[in-house]
């Protein structure tokens, strides 16, 4: 009896702790290249700005990778300006063209969507599945397809905030 109870306890413990294992491991260099591509395939309503402002919310190596890229690359003739914000600075995210929500801060998704309201900002999350909670794009690793890095798009949300997304980008996204 003691054995059976212990056995059941172990299984319950295992199931209860599932969120702590198998964290999605995105390659940050690839992630940053994706971000640059997303910018290429999205149109903002006001194209007159001389730079693309990108914010990374929370601690993520993507910030470092994007910073490196920004020193050597521009997109459509515009510079990339990269900033890092913490959870107390969410009121500023409206000012950015692109906001990247780090995996560690994925629980801030609701606050981010509330803060953005209908601002023309592309909200990208490192954690998968957050397009259902208002993100524009969520990254994911497809374990069933040789661990390729893919992305999901919330087309409705993107268009609601006044952004235009190319059909090519939509075609390459994962449902």
């Amino acid at each position: 009896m003691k054995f059976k109870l212990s056995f059941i306890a172990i299984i319950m413990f295992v199931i209860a702790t599932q969120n702590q294992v198998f964290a999605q491991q995105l390659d940050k260099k690839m992630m940053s290249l994706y971000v640059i591509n997303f910018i290429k395939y999205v149109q903002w309503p006001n194209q007159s700005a001389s730079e693309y402002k990108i914010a990374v919310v929370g601690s993520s190596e993507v910030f470092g990778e994007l910073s490196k890229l920004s020193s050597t690359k521009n997109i459509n003739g515009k510079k990339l300006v990269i900033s890092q914000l913490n959870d107390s600075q969410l009121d500023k995210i409206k000012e950015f063209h692109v906001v990247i929500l780090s995996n560690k801060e994925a629980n801030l998704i609701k606050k981010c969507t509330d803060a953005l309201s209908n601002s023309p900002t592309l909200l990208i999350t490192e954690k998968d599945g957050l397009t259902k909670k208002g993100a524009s794009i969520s990254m994911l690793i497809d374990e069933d397809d040789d661990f390729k890095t893919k992305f999901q798009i919330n087309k409705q949300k993107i268009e609601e905030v006044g952004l235009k997304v190319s059909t090519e980008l939509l075609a390459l996204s994962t449902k």
Partner: protein
Amino acid sequence: MIKFLRIKILETLILLFICVITDAQIKLDSTITNDTTDLKQLVEQKSTAQFSKMERDINQDVNVASKKTLSYRKTPSIVTVITEEEIVKSGARDMIDLLRQIPGLDFNADIQGVVGLSVRGNWAQEGKHLFLIDGQEINETLYGSVNYATNFPLSHIKKIEIIRGSGSAIYGGFSEYAVINIITKTGEDVQGFQTQFQMGHTANALGRLNASVLAGEKIKSFHYSFGAMAGTGHRSDQNYTDMNGNTVRLNQNNSQLNPTYLNFSCGYKGLSARFVYDNMSTRTQMGYGNVFTKSYPSLYSNLLTELKYIHTFSDKLNITTRLNFKNQKTYHLESSEASEENTAFEVPVQRYRANMIVSYDPTKKMNIIAGGEIFIDNAINYSYQFASLNSNKASFTNLSAFTQFLYKNKFITPTLGFRLDKNTSFSQIAISPRFALVSRIGKVNLKCMYNRSFRAPTIFNIALTETFDNKGKPIMVPETSDIFEFEIGVPITRNSYFTLNLFDITTQNPILYNVSETDVESYKNGDKNGNKKLGSRGFETEFKVKDAWGYFNINYSFYTDQGMPQIDDYNIRGYNLEVSNINLGIAQHKFNLNAAYNITQKISIAPSASMWSNRYAATQFDDKGFLISRFEPTFLANVFVNFNDAFNTKGLQIGFGCYDIFNKKFQFLQTSQNFIAPMPALSREFIIKLTYNLSKNS
């Protein structure tokens, strides 16, 4: 003993929870650079993110369960994969060492020193499990059995995929309880040359002495591989006591196993050919009932050929066509070697097979497989006439059609399939449906499966049947099994994975073998008392850890026949023993452990152990009938140390090991009330392996 086992399992699991805290990872290959900015290129790139070895393992491709490549955790069967790394590091001597580590699998005694497989408490030797090597069916066609000996060079194996459960919907009549699929290294895997020498010795006899070579290469679209092995050894070095109390020592030339093996394959684009020659020449003194007065040769040979063409019409559609020819001899004893106590058995048998499978992916998530197969079995009995056929020739034809639908979804993957078989040896059409749901809730993987499997009567089942219809035509109906399974798989940490599966098997119309005291063989559906059903239920659980330091696998299996129908010959009811809910010869509780620890980058040590609870088997026969004896719990422990790049020579591996460290002298027990006495295995054996790899890949 059981209490001790339970406590040890619990302690081990708890310790592992505490200990498994490191997260060693492997880096995947990637060609990503800062200049890779094209989106189309990016979505085709593997992530360079770091994954643990275990994450890679549970997502590795498995083909055996569905013919459609799926990841291990999504494949619609209870599957175990033994990797090349595990084979090398474990130092396993032969297939028995490897497969007995799989939960639910065990080995038992057949006649004349043959060792066969049992699955989940059921004897699975005669046509009840399918053994494939590179897709070639090893089961002999007369009885459907497989002789597990020393005949396959383990160093040539890339991986082994094992289904515990039915494969009938895809593979047909020999895959009722399990499928074992050996996949050897291709030319691309070898890219050069490999040779191995293995020697093992017990205190009393040479355990094994064999040498093997493997060569292969891939040059553009052409590939070839060639493997060969030859050797000698013994099944046992212990005393064998027959059912009448006569004893013989098996350390001379009376339990020899002399394997010869060739496996050649080549291919160009979609066309490939394979030739396998597996010859096991044995000597045995273990007669049925009585020890023979001298040893006799007994031959088990397989000659298998295949021509295969995969025509790929598009990414979505391909057609695979296979032509196979199989020529076999089994339990073969030449008349010139035979005597009155061991009569000649010369029955060569051939199987001609044509098979076509269409695989179509209407969408990325959907796969449909459909196919057909025909095979013709021909046997000539040069020793005597087949009793029920009034002829020394037997010929049967089997026609099959099968289909399978699979829908890959992030949340649930259903698989639906069925197979129809019509054989000229039985009047009914055998229908084998399968239904599986594979799901993922969070990180928990769930599988729920139902299979109706069948076992086709083989040539000897028909030819020696005890049952005839009104017109004197032999009657044998296909044996069928309903198998329900459920599995939960949980990643405990990034380096560890836990599985628990439940099973319930009911077999109808079992085809049962019987040999009378006067050596007359016969078959019938059901036993002599009219029982026509048998079954088992139980569970298997496994915990695996894999990390940079090595790996650790622990598993436990349990079965019972409580509440299940039973065949009198197979169970121990009616013998007034302390238990009544288990089958003869097969332990109700079995525990396995195998691990490898990398002492340095080049040196690993691999302990392994198996523990069986009480087993019961017939040991004597007298006027009162069979005497059923209890065999106390058995514990086998082994260790193997492997040195890579030994003596600073790249590609040179040297391994030393000791098997059955405590010299427990394991016995293979028979699984029914018959005249096969318990057969001793080798006692403690010390082995050495020398392997040299000259590969462009290394």
